[in-house]
């Protein structure tokens, strides 16, 4: 499943989607950045409620396929600019983290 397909199927809003054709495999949920660095797999979808600039560096360096901000959280302006610049897909979910994860689990392995 590509990030673009996932966005459509889950009804997410794309804050920015510089790499729509990126394939997703796996998922990780967490807000503590070193946990994400240590546990999130490459190419996964990362669900978080953290919205500051640091999530973009983490997403890029840990090489995740996309970041999904759950619970209606919106990114900082600086985070959004950096995501565009560094090619990080940043998606927005109005649903709670749990519901977002369940919806995701129906679509990816």
């Amino acid at each position, binding site marked *: 499943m590509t990030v673009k397909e996932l966005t459509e199927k889950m009804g997410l809003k794309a804050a920015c989607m510089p790499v729509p054709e990126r394939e997703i495999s796996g998922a990780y949920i967490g807000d503590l950045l*070193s946990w994400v660095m240590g546990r999130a797999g490459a190419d996964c979808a990362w669900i978080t409620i953290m919205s500051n600039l640091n999530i973009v560096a983490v997403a890029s360096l840990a090489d995740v396929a996309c970041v999904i901000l759950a619970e209606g959280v919106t990114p900082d302006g600086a985070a959004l600019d950096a995501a565009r610049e560094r090619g990080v897909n940043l998606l927005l979910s109005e649903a709670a983290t749990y519901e977002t994860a369940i919806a995701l689990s129906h679509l990816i392995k």
Partner: protein
Amino acid sequence: MSESLRFTFDVDGGDFTSAGHASVQVKKNLRQLGLSPEVIRRVSIAMYEGEINMVIHAGGGHAEVLVHEDCVEIILDDKGPGIADIEQAMQEGFSTAPDQIRSLGFGAGMGLPNMKRYTDSMEIFSTVGVGTKIVMKVNY
């Protein structure tokens, strides 16, 4: 013996809201060199954790990345407060990060363990009141 490629960075201690510049740049450089995604990912994560630690715990420092024939070597050097008990600092969950840093998502006490996990070797030299030097290697 052929020369190793070398990248150096001054890591600014002032701004932990946007730290990670050196790591992001290293990732770009290694990509251009055509290293495997797996090696790039391991170097990126280990370096980012070390870079953030220098910003948060040591007021900045210096980073050097050497691309050797058989590995990438990362050398981080700071003149911060040093680490009194390295064994304790290496434990998952140990952190002295202040609250305003924690609210940004740092301070889980997982950085040093991650650096160890993602590298093939890691050495820490630290003297209280003088500074900390960390040398890591990621083999191809």
